[in-house]
């Protein structure tokens, strides 16, 4: 029962990690899900090797979208821009415990992933080239 509201999601919903604003980020993106009004933004600080040394997310919305943003922020800390670019959504979904989500709610879970990819692609001066949903 309530399989994707298990402790991990609820824990990140109650105590989000890396939440807040960042001054002068190196990479940044904001996106929203018009369906439910979920909003997520990511701000990344990179070192000389384009490695993420700090990450902040901000936003509001359902527990799934916000917990996913929090979990993803922990996942990518220390990774390079190139590594994040090559990351797959399956990696995040595995981290979320592979919840059984329908076509509508998967958008809540992957909003963070899409926003992070937007930040990376915009940092690289490219258009997002990935089918997210």
């Amino acid at each position: 029962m309530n399989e994707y509201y298990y402790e991990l999601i609820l824990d990140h919903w109650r105590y989000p990690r890396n939440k807040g604003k960042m001054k002068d980020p190196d990479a940044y993106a904001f996106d929203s899900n018009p369906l439910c009004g979920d909003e997520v933004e990511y701000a990344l600080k990179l070192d000389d090797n384009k490695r993420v040394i700090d990450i902040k997310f901000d936003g509001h919305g359902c527990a799934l979208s916000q917990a996913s943003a929090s979990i993803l922020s922990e996942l990518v800390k220390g990774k390079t821009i190139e590594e994040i670019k090559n990351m797959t959504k399956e990696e995040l979904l595995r981290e979320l415990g592979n919840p059984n989500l329908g076509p509508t709610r998967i958008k809540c879970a992957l909003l963070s992933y899409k926003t992070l990819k937007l930040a990376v692609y915009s940092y690289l001066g490219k258009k997002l080239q990935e089918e997210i949903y």
Partner: protein
Amino acid sequence: MLDKQRIQIIKKDFPILNREVNEKKLVYLDNAATTQKPIQVIEAIRKYYEYYNANVHRGVYTLAEEATAAYEESRKEIVDFINANSYEEIIFVRNATEAINLVAYAWGRKFIKEGDKIVVSQMEHHSNLIPWQILSREKKAKLEFIGITEEGKLNEEDFNKIDKKTKLVAITHVSNVLGTINRVEEITKIAHELGALVLVDGAQSVPHMPVDVKKIDCDFLAFSGHKMLGPMGIGVLFAKREILEEMPPFLTGGEMIKNVDFYESTWNDLPWKYEAGTPNVEGAIGLAEAIRYLKNIGMENIRAHEKALVKLALSKLSDIKGLVIYGPKDPEIRGGVISFNLGNIHAHDVASILDQEGVQIRAGHHCAKLVMKKFNVPAMARASFYLYNDEEDIDALYSALNVTKKVFGLD
């Protein structure tokens, strides 16, 4: 409320209500979005395809004649249902959205001029807002709003925004979020005295209560078939005949013409002038069958049933701590719609947990972002009733909400 025995008989007509969801009994409470279909409607559509499918108004052979007769009989069923004057006033469209767009494009582009006013309310579904935003921008007309009170009613002080410059008042009969039943007769009276026409969005009223276009005296009425036991893809625009005669066509092509020459053509009689292309014949037949089903139960009885369900739900849910219900508390002026939020839990999370319990409700902004703005929330959860819902469904909603609180650790 309809008596228990009657409800049990009604439930049997809806095969889908037998299924389970997540190993729980299905409790369908999203009737404001779409309703389930009785076996009678499913069978009517099946019979059409199995026995007399043909294109309408074209052939002279038996199948075509039968299909045409059934399509036009369906139109007459609607004339009677909303008490229109004639079949000439009933145009089949895809849904209420298309009906309103038809008015905005055909009537609006001819009759709205720079400096004119269009008055809508803050309570509108986007389908009765966006067409007017686009039209008013295009024509340099002014779009004005009747606001919402804290209680979730129209702010009647804003009725004075309807003035001599106003050409159209477009207003919902029943709010799809707040459930508020608006006094459309009175608005029509005010508008007509000042020379404005009135479009009533009946998507949430026609399925649930007696609606009489003569009594309301509205100039346009839009509604969707799938919200009243009919199939998807069929809806109705009612418009007064004299207005339809003055309006140019909307979509053009086959069926809507009378004479065609190289550079000019003339238009078909009403209502076919507004029905270009092959229509949704199965939809019309299904909708007519749905109306016969509703009439058999009686629209007064359906209204009384939903009123009783709302009264019961409002009183039962009121003891859930942290539950905020939006809209009027008086069942007399409220349709079978209850929108709410539970503590700081997002409406989507509420709907997901309820789903695990078999309870199907809608969550989101309900295509009414201006209502969300008024109550300063990004989303609401919404339970909405119909004739096959009963006390047990409200009990299921109640206990699923308590499960939700437990999952999220709310006291």
